């Protein structure tokens, strides 16, 4: 138990010490939220101004819509790239120190996943510094639900990263594979646009993408789905359906947890059986 804790602690300490990484982690979200979000938001507003808009839709604010997606993006990137440290440890030789010790391999994977998840949670929470500038109102109910939701997502994504890292020898190889995963998963998750009116094939991929449910879960919590007028829910693409069933926040959390459990078991198996 203490072994898992110390492996976790190591990642968190390094995150806190690395100021440059911390500062640069704001760049992408800033670009998306403020530049892309405002630009897109303006365009949508002018489109709506030219036609007749149903009542309630006037409340559609694209920057607000994007904010949960940006949380998703940040958490996803941080969690999946946290596994890079495994490959780097291997490159710099430190992994040998861990592998020659009597620590069960399963503990190493657990500690690493928890470390990556914690760092991603912290990074995700830091994004809430944008909140005052985009007019989202937080309340204790939102905060209390969003923290465990982010952690759950971060844990699941972190285990995907570790599964990939478990078999790779170079940081370059890892980055290449992860880049191939990151872009399609992010673009087809509803982080950047409402999931409405997609072509059929795209709809299928979106529904297969676990990140879709993560982003939707964040939207439902942060934008307070329960209190939203129906037409706004529709416009923001929040009435996600799978096989005719309206997906609830609880469904999504359950699915992400299950997916994460499968991933971490695979990661443990892969890490224990490979020659380091």
């Amino acid at each position, binding site marked *: 138990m203490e072994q898992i804790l110390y492996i976790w602690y190591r990642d968190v300490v390094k995150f806190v010490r690395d100021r440059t990484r911390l500062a640069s982690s704001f760049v992408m979200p800033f670009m998306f939220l403020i530049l892309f979000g405002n630009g897109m938001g303006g365009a949508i507003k002018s489109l709506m101004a030219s036609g007749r808009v149903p009542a309630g839709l006037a409340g559609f604010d694209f920057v607000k819509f994007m904010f949960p997606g940006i949380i998703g993006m940040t958490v996803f990137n941080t969690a999946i790239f946290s596994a890079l440290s495994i490959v780097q440890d291997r490159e710099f*030789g430190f992994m040998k*120190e861990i592998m020659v010790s009597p620590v069960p391999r399963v503990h190493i994977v657990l500690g690493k996943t928890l470390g990556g998840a914690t760092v991603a949670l912290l990074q995700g929470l830091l994004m809430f510094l944008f909140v005052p500038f985009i007019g989202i109102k937080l309340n204790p109910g939102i905060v209390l639900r969003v923290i465990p939701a982010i952690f759950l997502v971060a844990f699941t994504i972190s285990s995907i990263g570790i599964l990939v890292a478990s078999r790779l020898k170079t940081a370059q190889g890892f980055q290449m594979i992860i880049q191939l995963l990151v872009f399609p998963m992010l673009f087809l998750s509803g982080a950047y646009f409402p999931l409405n009116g997609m072509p059929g094939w795209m709809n299928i991929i979106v529904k297969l993408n676990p990140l879709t449910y993560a982003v939707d879960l964040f939207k439902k919590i942060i934008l307070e789905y329960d209190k939203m007028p129906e037409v706004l829910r529709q416009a923001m693409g929040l009435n996600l359906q799978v096989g005719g069933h309206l997906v609830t926040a609880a469904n999504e959390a359950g699915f992400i947890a299950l997916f994460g459990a499968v991933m971490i078991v695979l990661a443990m198996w892969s890490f224990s059986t490979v020659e380091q």
Partner: protein
Amino acid sequence: MTKNSNRDIIVVKNLTKRYGSFTAVKGISFSVKEGELFGFLGPNGAGKSTSINMMCTVLSVTEGTAILNGHDITRDKARVREAIGIIFQDPSLDENLTALENLKLHCVMYKVDKSVRMQRIMEVLEMTELIDRKDSLVKTFSGGMKRRLEIARGLLHYPKILFLDEPTIGLDPQTRSHIWKYIMDIKERENITVFLTTHYMDEAEYCDRVAIMDHGELVVLDTPANLKNAVGGDVIRLRTEDDEMAVAEIGKRYGLAVTRDRDGISFSVASGEEFMAPFIKELPVKILSIGMSRPTLNDVFLKFTGRALRDEELSSTDQLRETMKRSRAGLRPFGRS
């Protein structure tokens, strides 16, 4: 050596490692007694690290096995890992953590009891003279300090067997002798079995027993003294105007086996003093220089493999000179005054 029990703490049986069609370790067998300082001596690429890494369970075994402290390295990895400490040939510290954090992490990984942790950490830090740098990040350390920290770390959990893979490679002479002092200290104090690899002949001299390794095989295994006796008598080295002819003449006149290398020719005789005077008069080839020495482990290597250790790489003194040059150059870049 008085502390040596008679127990074999390491028993290696037909240990083999193949990489595809290339066999890096060719079925070696030997054993090491508890409390012994045991060494592998051999040139780069001989298979020393490969053997050690298999014994330490970080490299899979192709064939054969080894029993460490009663546990089989292929079947009982966890128990083997508990019994050993290793200083790898290549660095294995986390440079973004402090020295203290690296040591704490090690204690946690090896489940060193909380009540003795800090005391042991302080003890090894003191021994390796790193105590006043304990809160600095490792990446700010010099090469010698990092090596010392690795040795300190390897000792924290009081291993029964300590493996040292080229513990002093690339270090300056002062640091090398420091590190050797620590190694001898611990061995005496804790009765730890020390298993080291080196390609420095002078380091192999410290060992209770040395195994000479070449091309994945153990060529010979004995105490340094016995190995040198096996060479027989004194070694005569000379350079002449015509080495080729000299070799032939010595063979013809004295029936001696002569070896030729970069530095001239050498052979051994029972008593160098008596042999030398008539030899210089009798040899029909002009002698440029001649010297006599007690045999070294290099001569042993030469006798058993037909090649000099130094043929393939810089000798240890050459390497030390190289390191010193490099570190001196590093101290004063571009003649800044």
